[in-house]
């Protein structure tokens, strides 16, 4: 069981990812944009972060960049959950410090497998 932070501006996407991960016994917190997520992340620690890319206020790439400045999140797996799988977005995310990416629309089994993989 791990503690995972889910960041997406779409509530239904958050719900779906959360329910998938909860079904495997993970503990979930969520946030609707990067800024909110950063606030939550500062206060506690998570075993993994899953974030959308295109969000209002603070986008996913900025969030990753900001999280990596926190000592707690130096090595934490951060996955980008996005449909914008074009390479420049991915590499932008990677150079900001993202661990990898998940593609949406997602299939629950695959999502879970990937998350479990990064949790080790």
């Amino acid at each position, binding site marked *: 069981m791990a503690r995972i932070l889910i960041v997406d501006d779409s509530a*239904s996407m958050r719900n*779906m990812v959360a329910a998938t991960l909860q079904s495997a016994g993970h503990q979930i917190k969520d946030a609707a944009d990067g800024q909110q997520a950063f606030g939550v992340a500062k206060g506690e620690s998570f075993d993994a972060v899953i974030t959308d890319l*295109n969000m*209002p206020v603070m986008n996913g790439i900025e969030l990753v960049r900001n999280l990596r400045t926190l000592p707690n999140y*130096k090595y934490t*797996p951060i996955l980008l959950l996005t449909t*914008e*799988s074009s390479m420049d977005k991915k590499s932008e995310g990677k150079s900001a410090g993202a*661990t990898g990416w998940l593609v949406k629309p997602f299939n629950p089994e695959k999502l879970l497998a990937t998350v479990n993989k990064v949790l080790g």
Partner: protein
Amino acid sequence: MTIDLKQFYQVFFEESYEGLDVMEQGLLEISKSGTDDPELINTIFRSAHSIKGGAGTLGFPEIVSFTHVLETLLDEVRDGARSLTNESIDLLLKSCDALRDMFQSLEQEQPIDDTVSKELLAAFEQMLSQPSATGETAAGEAAGSDAGLSSQDSALEQTFFPTGDAADGSAGSDAGGDKIWLIGFKPEPQILLTGNEPLRIFRELEELGSLDVEANVEVVPAFDQISVDECFVSWTLRLDGSVDRDDIESAFDWVMDECELNIERVDAHATSDDASANESAEIEVTAASDGTDEPTPAVAEPQAAPEPATVSVAEAPAAPAAKPSGTLAAKAPAAKSESGGMSSSAGGSIRVGIDKVDNLINLVGELVITQSMLSELGNNFDMDKLERLANGLEQLQQNTRELQESVMRIRMLPISFTFNRFPRMIRDLSMKTGKKVDLVLSGEQTELDKTVMEQIGDPLVHLVRNAIDHGLEMPEERAAAGKDETGKIQLNAEHRGGNIVIEITDDGRGIDPDKILAKAREKGLVAPEQELTVPEIYDLIFEPGFSTAASVSDISGRGVGMDVVRRNIKSLGGRIEIESELGKGSTIRVHLPLTLAILDGQLVRVGKEVFIIPLVAIVESLQIKAELVNRVSGNMVLYRLREDNVPIVPIYKEFNIEADNQELENALLVVVEGDGNKIGLLVDDLLAQQQVVIKSLESNYRRVEGISGATILGDGSVSLILDIQGLITRASRNRRKSHSSRAA
């Protein structure tokens, strides 16, 4: 693991309706300002994108393919390859409508009617294939990359990693059997800082076949020079098994550009296999981007999804039909208003800010503490603990009040929910009528009870339509009258006392009282000799049977008349009034109660009865001084209150009951105000002030003049709530009667 996706439908639908509203507002703004504000475009894009993402996961292929085309267009705009023309805005707005219809069908578990969406798609495709040639390639790329599903996705990546090979899977598996792979993996030092753990990758490879790992540690610096954040080790791995190249690559997917990776097949068939694989990889790549240039690129998307997703796509639309029970089915019969956006919330649920819920949870926490304190106190109670008990009860009272306020606040929504439908409506109307209209909204954040909001939507729509249709003049006419050619409609909402006031103001031709009166006489609504004041004449507009038939048009002349508008507003406990100046314009003002459920009341006693006076209506309470009482005539008695003469209304007379005291001297007078008029209510005693839950008298008994409802008090007795406005109207009627009798 199985997850029932249906549980997410409702939230997704509501979110999508909201997203469509956001898109629509953004589009209207762009259409108005004429500039493609990048932030605005991105917001619109994001909405379409979220809808597509959710629809894809939940298995609504019709929505996916439709939004995909919108997204393609918007993406071109975002990249600057295309600008939004009026034509494309129109098309996008129509698409919002079409999507709303599609969502409503899904919500009601009806099959989706795709005639409209097909027409729109055709129009989009025509647009996308039009001159903006740069746009077309951008669209192709965007679609290809956005498809984002594993096979296409990895195929695209191959372009960046030509050593890689997407088609190896098929070629390799044809050959079957075990293969031996030699993998050189040299990560860049900072790889650990992205949370990528080489061990994790090895573990994944280990699942594919038997793995030998050899670490090369030559470059690891001396211990005192080691930086813990950096990775100095490289590895040589030997993987044995029926494994394809893309399986291996997918394990390294995330670290591709942060390492040197060398994957080599070292068993007997290696060379020929690799060569053919490379070739087909290129073909694959082209195929992937070609495919997206096809007219309906998105259709391919669900098929390209990994297998389990395809299954859910096929299943989802059929599944709801098989189970017609549950919340979705229950919602289906709910009436839908024509504008769609609001109708989504007409059903059961409400979206509430997290802060409001958190606040509620805190309060419940406090309540629990108070409760446990009280029950502990009660366990072995003696008189010494009386003070603590009193404190506890006081705390309980406070908790309850706060909890109640907090729950009420949950029902409150900003009126922007209703206002937001107007920009679109006005755009459409202005195109239809040829009138130029500028809409100004203010006070959109004013909060209003959800039930009131839902019911005020249609009357407001009607009023705004009327303002444009009857109020505003054609541009030429306006120019001739020395006005700006563009007419102005203002919508304003604000809190005034316990009410919310919504004003619809136009700067049009205004209402001509003479014309109205003439028409009313013609229709027999007003007797020929009867004289009316101007406000009374305006009021005629709301009479049933009064229609400005001369100007009935496509817009406002349909069905619902102003009488229905007034009836709706009255049934909400509100009222409507008109102010107008000929040639300058009109203002229609709608007063509504903030909530229909709870009222702050002053309890008063008259004889044996307890009545409730809405606290907001009370100006002051005083003891009558005989010298200020002024008997005008008959039964009309006025009280001199500073500058005002306030009619005294004895409640016992109004309701024909026994009072303790019928003398005016030293009696208690509660001065109340409604609509700028004051009256003084004569009561026997002032009791407590408290919040009461309003129960309708009409639905439980029947309408009674002067009474707006009833409530149940703490001791279980029923108490009537006074209708201040009604009492004032009655008093002024009596006053007029006494005036006229005096005159006669």
